[in-house]
């Protein structure tokens, strides 16, 4: 029996933003170590809020988040998390190589190790021709590659990819998928959010559907299809969190109490949720 702590464990996680919007309420989730885990849900479901909690980017209202058994805010836990955010957020003053080396330094790598690793990542992500180019001069695809390379730079145990393939061309999406799959095969835990359901179905061993700040369902893609008597994950999605049915789905997970659902949102999205 495996007694190793989950890669990610959320217990009673609640996040209420300063404007009163409740993004997550009493959210529980455990992602086993080594799992390729998909997090699906509409915009405003609470996916990015959840990711931001794990990455120490928002203040938790209640509950706790553990990374491999360590509270997520502790330095040790932060060292284990690699995040590629949905929006491209690269340091405009640095070159491609500097972005990687400085990130490695921030996350505890020595200069020599960081430079060595940066060289590896530059080769892996085909950034060699742009090594000395400052980030504002990169194309959209190159920025996306660099964002992913940065997230993997310090060899995190838990890699969080927030819509990594949003807005990228088919070729790059294919390459990213191959690389992420390889990373997972080597034992890294992957937490992926995406709006491409076929991508989630293809890559993820397990999928959680979240809507309105609540966990609606969680299973393998096949298990979800069977449970919801659906031919595809898209159909499952539409029956649960899509098409404005999140509230009814949430209610089913909360003992049928339709009032238990809350107006969640991704923190950079519209604050149209239920305010207190």
């Amino acid at each position, binding site marked *: 029996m495996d007694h190793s702590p989950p890669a990610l464990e959320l217990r009673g996680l609640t996040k209420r933003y300063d404007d009163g919007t409740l993004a997550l309420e009493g959210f529980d989730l455990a992602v086993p170590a080594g799992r390729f885990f998909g997090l699906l849900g509409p915009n405003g479901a609470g996916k990015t809020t959840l990711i931001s909690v794990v990455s*120490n980017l928002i203040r938790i209202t209640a509950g706790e988040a553990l990374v491999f058994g360590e509270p997520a805010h502790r330095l*040790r836990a932060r060292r284990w*998390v690699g995040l590629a955010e949905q929006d491209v957020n690269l*340091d405009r003053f640095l070159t491609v190589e500097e972005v990687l080396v400085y990130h490695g330094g921030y996350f505890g790598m020595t200069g020599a190790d960081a430079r060595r690793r940066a060289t590896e990542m530059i080769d892996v992500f085909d950034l060699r021709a742009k090594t000395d180019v400052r980030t504002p001069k990169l194309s959209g695809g190159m920025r996306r590659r660099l964002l992913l390379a940065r997230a993997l730079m310090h060899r995190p145990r838990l890699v969080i990819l927030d819509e990594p393939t949003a807005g990228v061309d088919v070729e790059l999406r294919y390459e990213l998928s191959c690389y992420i799959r390889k990373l997972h095969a080597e034992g890294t835990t992957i937490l992926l959010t995406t709006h491409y359901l076929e991508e989630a179905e293809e890559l993820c061993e397990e999928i959680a559907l979240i809507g309105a700040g609540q966990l609606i369902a969680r299973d393998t893609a096949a298990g979800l299809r069977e449970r919801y008597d659906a031919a595809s994950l898209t159909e499952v999605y539409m029956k649960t969190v899509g098409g404005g049915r999140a509230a009814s789905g949430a209610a089913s997970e909360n003992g049928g109490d339709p009032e238990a659902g809350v107006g969640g949102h991704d923190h950079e999205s519209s604050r149209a949720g239920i305010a207190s």
Partner: protein
Amino acid sequence: MSTTHAPAPSPGEAVEGPHHRGARERLGDRYGLSGFLWLCRRECLRVFKLWTQTVLAPIVSSILFILVFGLSLGSRIRNFGGIEYEVFIVPGLITMAMVQAAYNNTSSSVFQGRQDRYINDILSAPMHPWQMNLGYAIGGIVRSLAIGAGLVALAIPLTGVGVQHPLVLVAGILLGLVGFSALGTIVGIFAETFDNHTFVSNIVILPLVFLGGVFYSITTLASPWQELSHVNPLFFLVNAVRYGFIGHSDVSPVLSLAVVAAIALPMYGWAQWLFSTGRRLKA
């Protein structure tokens, strides 16, 4: 993208003290020291990558003040306490350039990091909040010291200004830079637009420095302007630095240092509180 020789982030690699890493890194890892040093380095890199804008420009404008007001017009202005006018204005001009640089550096760096959201790379890194706050402050302090050193190197041959009380000078400058870099951090955290940052620089700091006796001794002012000058904290900073350079001050240097410390330390504490609580930095 190559998928054939991808670096292997094996699951055990980052657990605890991987064998291939040295003790130095493990120590840095545990206490966030590595991240702190790299943040300091990043802030300094930013200053020196943009050196014409961040260092050269303030030196040139301050030297122009010395040349125009000191050397050209100085002979027509009476001495203050037997000190030549071109010498009298040097400490104030150096103070003005340094505090503005300290403020501008942290304010713009933090604001740009927030605006483009790459500050998330710092906030999510294994660093203590005090290391983040100090890392940003050091960028401002280094930039100011580079400007100060450049100005002193040019002012000595131009005016013959010397250093009479080095301890007071060092204490005054350090306290001033801590206070103004912290103010910049606070404004960078609260600013909604770049206008907020420039507003504080141009509408608050600049007038206070000018009215703090950079170009004159307040003994030349009539009442109530002389008394009102004592409400201006920059008056005390300018006088502490002037005392350090030329041994002349309109007020006791001990009082000057005490007032500057009484403003700088709470300011730094406020910036620290923002990093510790995540207010305005984290949603």
